[in-house]
């Protein structure tokens, strides 16, 4: 098996056994990027020199057996919404072209502390707004399973990198499914932690009350490891929780025997591919065979989650993106005859169509006279969704459903129809609005394309979601399937 095909844990073992060095490993992954990068377009920036420098430092740590951590020497990709000191960070937007932050995100600092190796910044939908990665301000990403298909979004670059062997693991961000949906569509594991579990400091904001950073990995245990490294309170993020972080690996293999798992009937939405539904039903049956008791539950307000999300997220975004006016950093159009004109030219040219659409939606929703009807109403809906989850979790330990109603679609298939695009996230969005956590784990192939099973657990119940996902993974071989670009496991 090639080094770039392996998991964090396998590689960690090889590193501490001195079977390989981090520089060798990093080289292997960088070579794979050279080989297939033009096909996936997963990266916006490959930080080769930084990666090799970090790999050397990790090797010294490994050699001296000094402070060796599970991620020491492991090559990881970072979604371009994460700020890395002195490394260009654009959030996939032209408007941040040339912006180099003088600071790092808290998660980046934590990974640095672990001795991880940064491969570069992965492509994404502009400001994380999208479900196909076609909204990148630079170029679309191609699915390593089928290059004419999308990898999902917005963390499409991170997903494609992990699925093509261009990274061992990656960090993504999830505002309405942006980790879980691309993970499902590329056959990897992706987790959205509970809001507040991971610090958002240094994450270029899309919707502040929904954004959450999470791991994208080859398997569930790797996800648990990566989450362990980034979770926890951060004094720089007042919305980060001070709850202690449990040992995710300690309970990972406890199995589902005796667990109560709920199947929300509303999650089998109209428009779901029959083959996807079949795979999910099979997955549920498998978990039942593992000893879980399955019961149907109802999350009655699921149907209004999508509209509520498309008020709240754009409203926050319209405010978060106001700072991009060209006067202090990033792109400046030039040629404006006065301040207002310069603002308008910069924002007209610097933002893509979807970002502008959401800024307008959000601005409208917050406008005087419309606030009560839209923003306030959407917040009330959000409260109902939170209540839905609370009630469901009184009866069951976790919820099961599909991650995405379909497998990866072809590039361009939905770009002309924003609403059809938005429907991709119909079963991931409630977890963001409901302050709960969710994980997507590979659960089959439909016409050769991967799909995912979504496990949703209560707020700060990451260990429960991981445990269920692991039990499913351990009983199946789906996660061992490798994309054609990554190559078959030897």
């Amino acid at each position, binding site marked *: 098996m090639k080094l770039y095909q392996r998991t964090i844990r396998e590689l960690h073992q090889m590193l501490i056994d001195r079977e390989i060095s981090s520089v060798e490993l990093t080289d292997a992954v960088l070579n794979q990027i050279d080989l297939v990068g033009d096909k996936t377009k997963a990266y916006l920036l490959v930080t080769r020199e930084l990666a090799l420098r970090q790999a050397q430092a990790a090797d010294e740590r490994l050699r001296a057996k000094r402070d060796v951590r599970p991620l020491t020497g492991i090559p990881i990709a970072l979604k371009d*919404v994460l700020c890395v000191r002195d490394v260009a*960070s654009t959030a996939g937007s032209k408007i941040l072209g040339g912006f180099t932050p003088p*600071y790092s995100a808290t998660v980046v600092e934590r990974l640095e502390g672990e001795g991880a190796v940064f491969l570069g910044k992965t492509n994404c939908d502009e400001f994380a707004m999208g479900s196909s990665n076609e909204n990148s301000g630079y170029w679309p990403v191609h699915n390593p399973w089928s290059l004419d298909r999308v990898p999902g979004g917005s963390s499409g670059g991170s997903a494609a990198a992990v699925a093509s062997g261009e990274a061992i693991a990656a960090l993504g961000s999830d505002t309405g499914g942006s980790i879980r949906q691309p993970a499902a569509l590329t056959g990897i594991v992706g987790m959205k932690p509970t809001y507040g579990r991971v610090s958002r400091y240094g994450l270029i904001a899309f919707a502040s*009350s929904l954004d959450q950073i999470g791991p994208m990995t080859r398997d569930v245990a790797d996800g648990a490891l990566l989450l362990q490294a980034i979770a926890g309170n951060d004094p720089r993020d007042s919305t980060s929780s001070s709850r202690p972080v449990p040992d995710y690996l300690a309970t990972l293999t406890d199995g589902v025997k005796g667990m109560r798992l709920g199947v929300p009937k509303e999650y089998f939405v109209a428009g779901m591919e029959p083959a996807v539904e079949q795979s999910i039903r099979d997955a549920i049956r498998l978990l039942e065979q593992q000893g879980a008791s399955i019961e149907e539950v109802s999350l009655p307000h699921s149907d209004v989650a999508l509209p509520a999300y498309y008020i709240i997220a754009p409203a926050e975004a319209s*405010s978060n993106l106001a700072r991009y006016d060209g006067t202090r950093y990033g792109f400046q159009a030039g040629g404006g005859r006065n301040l207002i004109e310069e603002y308008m030219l910069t924002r007209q040219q610097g933002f893509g169509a979807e970002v502008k659409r959401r800024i307008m939606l959000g601005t409208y929703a917050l406008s005087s006279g419309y606030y009560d009807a839209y923003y306030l109403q959407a917040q009330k809906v959000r409260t109902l969704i939170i209540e839905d989850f609370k009630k469901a979790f009184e009866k069951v330990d976790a919820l099961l459903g599909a991650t995405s109603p379909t497998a990866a679609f072809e590039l361009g298939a939905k770009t002309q129809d924003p609403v059809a695009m938005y429907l991709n996230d119909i079963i991931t969005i409630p977890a963001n609005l409901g302050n709960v956590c969710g994980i997507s784990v590979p659960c089959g192939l439909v016409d050769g394309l991967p799909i995912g099973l979504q496990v949703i657990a209560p707020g700060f119940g990451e260990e429960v979601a991981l445990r269920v996902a692991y039990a499913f993974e351990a009983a199946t071989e789906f996660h061992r399937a490798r994309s054609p670009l990554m190559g078959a496991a030897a």
Partner: protein
Amino acid sequence: MRALEAVTRYEVVVGLEVHAQILTQSKMFCGCSTDYLTAPPNANTCPVCLGLPGSLPVINRRAVEATIRTALALNCEIPEFSKFDRKNYFYPDLPKGYQISQYDLPFSRNGRLEFDLNGEAKRCGITRVHLEEDTGKLLHEGAIHEAQASLVNFNRAGVPLMEIVSEPDLRSADEAREYVMRLRAILQYIGVNGGDMESGQLRCDANVSLRPAGQTEYGTKVEVKNMNSFRAIHRAIEFEIGRQTEVLDAGGRLAQETRGWNDARGLTVSQRSKEYAEDYRYFPEPDLPPLDVSREWVAQIRAGLPELPAARRERFMTRFGLSPYDASLLTSSKTMAEFFEETVRLGAPAKAAANWILGDFSRLLNADRKEIDEASIKPVHLQQLISLIDSGAITGKMAKQTFDAMYRAPDPGPALEAARGSTQISGDAELDRIVVQVIAENAKSVADFKAGKGQALKFLIGQGMKISKGRANPQRLDALLREKIS
């Protein structure tokens, strides 16, 4: 003149919005220093106050405490639940494109400020005191509309700022000015604000409207901005009253608009009308969790409040017998009140101390735009000067000249000594006459001294000082008395 006429036909309605920078070491949402006046441009900035992508605010607890302190001093209610909101608008001095402020759940509401004006008791309601962040400062190359370039200094961006909103309870320019003076005194007493209007530590906007006497509905209100002194506040409101009166008298309608006060030209100029009013799209700041303001915390802050101007004024009246007017003026500034109390503590009669401080001293300070604690004259100097007058050593006219000289000198000591010295009797012939008179009039004390009572000599010297109206040199008196008695 016009304003005076207006009072008879129209009732003046004024409400004030006062912005006060809070004296904290660090900014509202980051650890940067609040020193924006002396630091080099953009030296005190960081990713948070520059609003760089991904940065997040963290609340400065001391600023919240100062806001609650202020609210308590203004008799406000402090709700148990509060939150921050975003006020969205584009301007180059606002790095995030929104200001973190408070909208519908401020830290406090429903307070009042009571004061007296020309012996009449006044009461102005306080709608709310809320907390927000200050903006950066723009420097234009020339006039704002013709400038080819403008520079931005973000040192001020993120400095904690309180907004104190009054009810429309003020009925004249005099009342408005008095309200701001009282408010400023309170903020200084409780140590939350520097009080300097020129540098922008304290800023005031006025909402001015007129209504026919007897009408209950308010007239169209005009917001007047850019007033940098008490005088400007007074002049701007007077002007606005006059302007609005003219429009109404001519049967015209007033536009609801914002007008800027031009101090040099002495008039207000229209800045923008309501039709172009900004829609700030307030919504709850998602980067900051809502705050629970515990009752224990509020009680703790309340317990830490010092004596406020109103209480001090009462005390000055009852304890020192000052007139309500003098007591009001003296307590309008914390430093002035403290100067007065210290002068009296050193032995000066209260009335004399008050007269000097409110008279010559204030006149000189005002001319120099200085605060009393910036003057070289200290309470001890004033007390000595007053004692020279009281003992008759110098005349009132001389005292005024002496005070001027003391005020102008970096060290008032020599001027004070010179006054004392210039009037002293040094000729032995005159002193001889005094000593003879003292001995003749105080036979018992002379006998006591002869019997060995040292105290008696002190008494005799005192008598000599009294006869000489303080002009005798006590050392010389001592020597001459000893000589004559023995």
